């Protein structure tokens, strides 16, 4: 006991305890000292948790390492222009992947653009507006969407959506005609298999993810926050803008990021409907290609430097996903610091 009385905190507690009226001068302090067995559960849990955390980092690091190593021959042959050259010709050893990078970014952008308003709409509707019974039905259906395999989406897109939507594209392109700006995006030679079709399919695929995650986040907004806005005479929409969105903003961005990650990485569905024609164009109704789709289509027959270049595409995709995530996180953190002061 004397050796630990130097501990200021413990010392203070002891003196407090001793002064407690009725406690007497000789309070029983045996339970205060940590015995040898105590805290062992915490230590074990700590090690397990640490192990899990390290495993994630290790897996991530090993993936990055091994893919980069495999891709190295192509990177060395092409140099840094791998990411900014548009000349992709495996037969001539040209690996400028810009068109695939562009396709991935464009398709993901379309998917997010279409999916986020719908997902947030569903999440807000189920949490804030819908009666209880309808809420459960919608939640169930949306979660069910997430369970459909991506190849089913892809085949549906290829066999049903693409033929059906081509006339729509053509009609839009015809209407837009030669208008400035719009004709540069919605004109061109519309094809059922296009950036847009891939974007739509991906949007449908990521909607359940974004919806369920944002629904969970929105459900955590404190009732006092909602009441604060309502008591000021806010309508439901004004309350959502003042209380719900600011409180759940970082969580919603996280949900969108997960959806974006899925959209950027989705292979088979995109491969079936994107048109497999690598090109850089603003015309969203034109066929294109994206990194994961191209890898999926070509990897079977690839060998040598071509194979290495395909893995290189994977490395670039990996890097873009991480960069987008980190950027979004830091933006959200900065925003939360400003508004919540935490």
């Amino acid at each position, binding site marked *: 006991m004397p050796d630990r009385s130097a501990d200021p905190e413990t010392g203070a507690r002891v003196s407090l305890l001793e002064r407690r009226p009725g406690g007497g001068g000789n309070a029983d302090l045996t339970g205060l000292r940590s015995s040898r067995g105590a805290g062992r559960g915490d230590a074990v849990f700590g090690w397990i948790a640490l192990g899990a955390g390290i495993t994630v980092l290790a897996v991530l690091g090993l993936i990055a390492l091994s893919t980069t190593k495999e891709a190295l021959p192509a990177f060395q042959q092409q140099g840094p222009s791998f990411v900014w050259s548009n000349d992709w010709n495996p037969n001539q050893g040209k690996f400028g992947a810009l068109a695939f990078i562009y396709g991935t970014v464009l398709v993901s952008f379309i998917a997010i653009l279409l999916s986020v308003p719908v997902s947030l709409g569903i999440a807000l509707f189920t949490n804030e507006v819908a009666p209880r019974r309808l809420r459960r039905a919608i939640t169930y259906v949306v979660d069910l969407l997430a369970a459909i395999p991506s190849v089913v989406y892809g085949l549906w897109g290829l066999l049903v959506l693409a033929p059906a939507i081509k006339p729509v594209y053509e009609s839009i392109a015809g209407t837009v005609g030669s208008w400035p700006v719009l004709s540069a995006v919605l004109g061109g030679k519309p094809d059922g298999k296009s950036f847009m079709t891939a974007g739509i399919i991906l949007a449908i695929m990521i909607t359940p993810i974004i919806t369920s995650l944002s629904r969970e986040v929105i459900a955590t907004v404190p009732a006092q926050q909602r009441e604060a806005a309502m*008591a000021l*005479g806010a309508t439901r929409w004004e309350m959502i803008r003042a209380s719900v969105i600011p409180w759940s903003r970082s969580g919603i961005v996280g949900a969108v990021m997960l959806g974006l990650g899925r959209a950027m990485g989705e292979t088979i569905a995109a491969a079936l409907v994107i048109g497999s024609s690598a090109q850089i164009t603003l015309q969203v109704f034109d066929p294109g290609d994206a990194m994961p789709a191209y890898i999926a289509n070509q990897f079977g027959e690839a060998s040598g430097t071509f194979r290495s270049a395909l893995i290189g595409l994977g490395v670039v995709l990996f890097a873009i996903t991480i960069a987008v995530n980190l950027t979004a996180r830091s933006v959200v953190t900065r925003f939360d610091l400003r508004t*919540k002061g935490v």
Partner: protein
Amino acid sequence: MADENYGRALVGEIAPGGTPLSMPNESPDDAELGPADMVVLDDRVAEPAPAPAVFDVDDLHVYYGGYLAVRNVTLQVARHQITAFIGPSGCGKTTVLRCFDRMNDLIPGCRVEGTITYHGVDLYGDDIDPVEVRKRIGMVFQKPNPFPKSIYDNVAFGPKISGAKKSDLDDIVESALTKAALWDEVKDRLGTSAMGMSGGQQQRLCIARAIAVQPEVVLMDEPCSALDPIATARIEDLMQELKQDYTIIIVTHNMQQAGRVSDRTAFFTAEVSPETEQRTGVLVEFDLTEKIFSNPSDERTENYVTGRFG
């Protein structure tokens, strides 16, 4: 009878423990404020005409689903006065308070019977828009609940949604913060987050936010229960100033607070049904605060205000 005795015994145990805790802070204030309050109250009693009623509550019943939470509440809330609702926990004070700005509408299954008129207009009439009601009748909550936005945006939110012009917002924010006795503390950091303020500052910000929409009435639901005695004293001073312009209804657990700040006091208590053990709030007595605390008409009020709850 058995139930009643059980209740007495229970409170008898709590009260001696509770009173000494609050006494050191409360008693000096009481000694100072007591006589001053009496003078004011005496003046009002001498007035021939009673202050005009803002709210007229007639035989109010509130149900949550099939459960009767409060029954038979009849009272009038006078203009530019502070009306306090006191009583033990679970006696329906807050439930009744939330009827005045129709916040109970937001609770699924909540049903209100009887009438509450606001300047003669039935608040629960078919053509009444609860959103408009809440613009005229502000509310301050038990826990400070500023939005996770800047101090300025917190105060400006109400006026903005009420259609205030952007050019007027600066003035509105300054005036509301000044009235809430907060302007000098925050005028140099209006752009910083309201979440970084102390609890007392946050609560005054919530008061500023409520009065920024220029309501006629401010409802306060135990506004000081999360605050320390110094912050509490500031809010109480503030209420006295706000009384000049606003009608205030305050729910409080703190009897000394009701005695210090209010002009009229309503004492609620809970009746426990012997069969179902459900608690239903009833209004026991409503009168001038001075009378409630010095010469109550009902034995239950007397027992409560003297610390012998029954």
